[in-house]
């Protein structure tokens, strides 16, 4: 799993950059129970999504305590982890999402700082 072929992902990335303004986002947030970090992360990402991706995103919040078997399948070791499934490329945004700039970079909504 997650073995993106590099040539595929490069092409997809360029595509994604061009059309990121109107692409549909599939996001999954993995949290652990109701820890403060989880609560923060959920609140933060919801706010960011509403501000930047209104109407074109789909966010699923998954509690690993409820579904521990998902941790292996989705290669989660860090919590909270937000996985950007679509658009390509796949990206993992870790932490409590308090740094909005970085979240936006991770979502390819901002260019990566040089």
């Amino acid at each position: 799993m997650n073995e993106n072929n590099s040539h595929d992902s490069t092409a997809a990335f360029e595509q994604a950059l061009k059309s990121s303004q109107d692409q549909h986002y599939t996001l999954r947030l993995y949290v652990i129970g109701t820890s403060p970090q989880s609560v923060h992360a959920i609140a933060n990402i919801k706010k960011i999504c509403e501000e930047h991706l209104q109407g074109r995103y789909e966010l699923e919040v998954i509690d690993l305590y409820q579904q521990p078997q998902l941790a292996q399948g989705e290669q989660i070791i860090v919590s909270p982890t937000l996985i950007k499934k679509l658009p390509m490329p796949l990206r993992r945004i870790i932490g409590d999402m308090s740094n909005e700039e970085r979240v936006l970079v991770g979502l390819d909504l901002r260019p990566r700082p040089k």
Partner: protein
Amino acid sequence: MTNSKPVSAARILLPKAPTGIQGLDEITGGGLPKGRPTLICGSAGCGKTLLAMEFLVRGATQFNEPGVFMAFEETIKDLTKNVASLGFDLDSLVADKKIVLDFVYIERSEIEETGEYDLEGLFIRLNQAIDSIGAKRVVLDTIESLFAGLPNPLILRAELRRLFRWLKDKGVTAIITGERGDESLTRQGLEEYVSDCVIVLDHRVCDQTSSRRLRVVKYRGSTHGTDEYPFLIDEDGFSVLPITSLGLQHDVSTDRISTGITRLDAMLGDAGYYRGSSVLVSGTAGTGKSSLAAHFCDAACRRGERALYFAFEESPSQIIRNMRSIGIDLEPWVNKGLLRFQATRPAFAGLEMQLTMMHKTVNTFKPEVVIVDPLNGFIIGDNETSVKSMLMRLADFLKTKQITSLFTSLTAGGAPLGVTDVAISAMIDTWLVLRDIEIGGERNRGLSILKSRGMPHSNQIRECLLTDHGMELCEVYVGAGGVLTGSARLAQEAQEQALKLTRKQEVERRQLELESKRRALEAQIEAMRAEFDVQEAEAMKIIGQEQAQALQLVLERAEMGQSRKADR
């Protein structure tokens, strides 16, 4: 203040999880600390992953302790393929729910850090894996990869500390591997967190031969061997070589076995070597060390015992051919499976590799007799100390197995006999010295017993001859000119023979003379006796006449009286 310290009734020993790895359990006194994490560190390619994997596989197959392998570096596919070469079938172990393999994929470029995080995901994942098969053992290989994959080392450190504590609470025996750092044991200083047991693996090249070593740096709550032990990775996995008998407590046998040479048996208290003893045959080049070894081999095979011959100079066929020339045919024993040759160049592998291979062959072939011919082959360059320690281990190992071992050792021409081997002499029970005796323009072989523990033995030097029916020992002459051997001995023998002959003739002559004297005397006696007889006869005759006359006289007187009618 009262000193009422509670005295523990019985010493509680630290519970240990056996690794099943040959040698490692002996060094650690039973295995790794049960229910605690152990750190294994070493540089790249020194076998950390293999050690960890073997611990897990052996736990699952031999000790009924299922295990979880969490890989951070290799994918499951690669890992399975890599350890298949050691005979571990991970696929079937996974199918049998004995082992769970989990590859943790971390790609730095995919990750964007946006704030505080923790490793709870890893905990959950590990917990899930452990609970799915009821695992008792866990391997994290190499957890330090997290530092490369995840930002913010401060958080990571705190989380790792929590992870190790969690593992302890969970009661699993864990192995954590770590890359060797420049100054510290591991790059990220993991040894600060995992402090119950630390094992360092090392892989070094010395004189172009590589050797792997293992050292238990720390083992909390237990005694352990602290030396560097050589280890080996081969098709059967990991094996570590400890000195097998740290306490010198092997059983000894009073059983004696023949040397293969009757005269030598006689020199050794009429019975030969003790079973399970170590014998050293040292001598200069060409003095018949290998022949002596071949005799011993032959004798063992004749008794129906197995003999293992480690040859480091000659190939098996060469040995067989050469021994045939002195009337020992080893080939039938090889065909019968009683004799096995293992011939390698000493330079073929490092010392440890050699020693481990020897251990393994001994363990599989189970011989009663082991020959190492010669020991010196191992000494390349400056490695004499390691050779000695290796031999010590080998001799000890064979002794504990009650295997009689015979080592040959080549002494340099000029070196005084017995000096070069002093270091190994301590572990040798019977030491035979073969030497060149140069006298009268020729070289001959002499054999003597330098020492033989626990038996009366001859202190004589014997000359040994290599004949077409084996090695023969004969008396040497010790005279004013020293020991006589070879043709000098033959000359001496001839001389003595001549001397003996003349003496014999002299005696015979004297006896003859005496005989004739006696005869002359007897003749004389005979003559005198004859003369005496004649005289005696004559005297008797006269005496007879005299008596007759006297009687006549009486008769006449009586007649006269009667005629005169005389009264009395």
